[in-house]
């Protein structure tokens, strides 16, 4: 499944918008002075009349999108995750979430792989914030192919959706056999029953690599890729808990409130098994190259494999 081709999911997002807009004239794209970085600029170049810049005004960005949605448009609004989920949280909560409006909040530069910009721009809290809003769909694609499928699924779904895309190029892990993406469904990428590695975003590629490392030590790890953080695919997680007996969650997000917490909440109520959460351990990031930061903060195949070994050995 794994390939050597790498592409940032924000790039996939910009390309997917152009593909979708060719078929659907109700798509409107809004940005807050980051069109070059969020890649809505790709859409703007193709459809300049359907792209609106709100300037550096994220609260306005969200609520203008809300108003547009009531007129029959499907707005895709973009800025960095820190400002979409963070700064404009209350606008998303009250003016998109509460009325359940058909707006897609497409946030780029999620997680610590933002790199050199440092902690002020490294949003590791967006899953927690967005998950807490009733009725909100929260997606985090792992690669180019899944990212483009997620954008399409978000368009086809009626209601508010938050999608996190990344800044850094990540390996394309899906291939032509990809079955497509459904909101609320996760996918098993690798069979195994000694431990389950449940991952999202760029951590899915790391989990696959970790499974290789574990295999070399005779441990067969199951790898599950979760693009749909909310709603969570309970069936696949509970099956993993029951069949593997131990779970390691892997996410480029705080261990508070993200995929790990969602998995813990589910299995503790329905099928209690030991869980370890690999994520950002309640600390702020700092400046540096993305690859170095991911290693430093334990967001790596090595740390996933090590954590799984510790769990298996009962440490």
């Amino acid at each position, binding site marked *: 499944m794994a390939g050597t081709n790498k592409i940032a999911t924000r790039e996939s997002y910009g390309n997917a918008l152009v593909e979708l807009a060719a078929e659907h004239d109700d798509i409107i794209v809004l940005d807050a002075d980051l069109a070059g970085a969020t890649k809505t600029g790709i859409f703007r170049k193709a459809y300049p009349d359907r792209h609106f810049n709100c*300037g550096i005004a994220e*609260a*306005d960005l969200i*609520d*203008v999108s809300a*108003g547009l949605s009531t*007129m029959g*448009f499907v707005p895709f609004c973009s800025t960095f995750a820190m400002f979409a989920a963070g700064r404009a949280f209350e*606008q998303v909560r009250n003016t998109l979430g*509460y009325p359940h409006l058909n707006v897609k909040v497409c946030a780029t530069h999620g997680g610590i792989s933002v790199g050199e910009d440092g902690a002020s721009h490294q949003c590791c809290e967006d899953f927690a914030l967005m998950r807490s809003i009733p009725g909100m769909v929260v997606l985090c694609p792992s690669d180019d192919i899944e990212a483009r499928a997620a954008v399409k699924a978000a368009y086809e779904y009626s209601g508010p959706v938050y999608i996190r895309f990344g800044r850094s190029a990540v390996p394309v892990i899906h291939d032509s056999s990809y079955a497509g993406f459904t909101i609320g469904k996760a996918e098993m990428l690798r069979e195994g029953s000694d431990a389950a590695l449940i991952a999202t975003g760029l951590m899915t590629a790391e989990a696959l690599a970790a499974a290789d490392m574990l295999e070399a030590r005779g441990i067969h790890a199951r790898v599950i890729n979760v693009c749909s953080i909310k709603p969570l695919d309970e069936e696949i997680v509970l099956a993993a808990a029951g069949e593997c007996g131990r779970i390691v969650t892997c996410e480029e997000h705080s261990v508070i409130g993200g995929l790990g917490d969602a998995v813990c909440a589910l299995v503790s109520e329905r099928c209690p098994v030991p869980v370890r959460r690999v994520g950002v351990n309640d600390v702020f990031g700092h400046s540096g190259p993305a690859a170095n930061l991911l290693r430093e903060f334990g967001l790596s195949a090595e740390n996933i494999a090590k954590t799984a070994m510790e769990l298996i050995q009962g440490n």
Partner: protein
Amino acid sequence: MTPEEKKNLRVTACRVRQGIIEGTFRAKSGHPGGSLSAADVITYLYFSRMRVDPSDPDRADRDRFVLSKGHAAPALYSVLAQRGFFPVEELKTLRHIGSRLQGHPNMNLTPGVDMSTGSLGQGVSAAAGMALGAKLKGLDSRVYTLLGDGEIQEGQVWEAMMFSAHYKLDNLVVLVDNNGLQIDGAVSDVMSPYPIDEKLAAFGLFVQTVDGHDFDELERAFDRAEAEKGRPSAIVLKTVKGRGVSYMENQVGWHGKAPNEEEYHQAMDELAEALAREEVR
């Protein structure tokens, strides 16, 4: 506006005020002060200005109203009921469990409500999105939004003003209910928003200031706003908080407090007298 039309508006506005008092009294909570200051302009909009159809509240080519100062929901509900969107009797369920009339407007529950609001500062952005959407759809719908004068302390309001002027949303009219009072006191003491008109003009809006309780002045201002092309309009409404109920007028304490039994009867008596006066005028 003919004298007959004006008389009808004044009569309707009295009934709207009765509904505000009825609702907040039965709810034992709510915001009568700012509802009463806004009662005349919302009555004017729905009875004299806006293209709306109570039998088809969601029709695509309707005009829109966003109550950015969502706490004045009793005024909006009372106007919508008088206009036929739902029974006037339903105003008695305001804020009750199971009611379609939530403490702040919910577009999915209440027929005629165009946007859910309540958290201050967000309505102008939503209204601007609607105005932009109408233009993109080629609709001649117009969009109105009503803000409190305390509400314009919210920074997002000014983000939205910039947006509206930048995209030349001349189908948008921003209304500021300048009753001069907010929860903690006079707006000029708490955090002065003045000069409101000059600020709005500096942000690129065409600004007028009128008596918000005078239907002739309102008519002239809305006509003039509609004639203005290439930029959004703003109308600063000089109003009296609590207008129409003697003991509530200009009293900051009546921002967010319901009348008790005795106060309720006094208010309803005053409004009944006012209604009788208007009907024989």
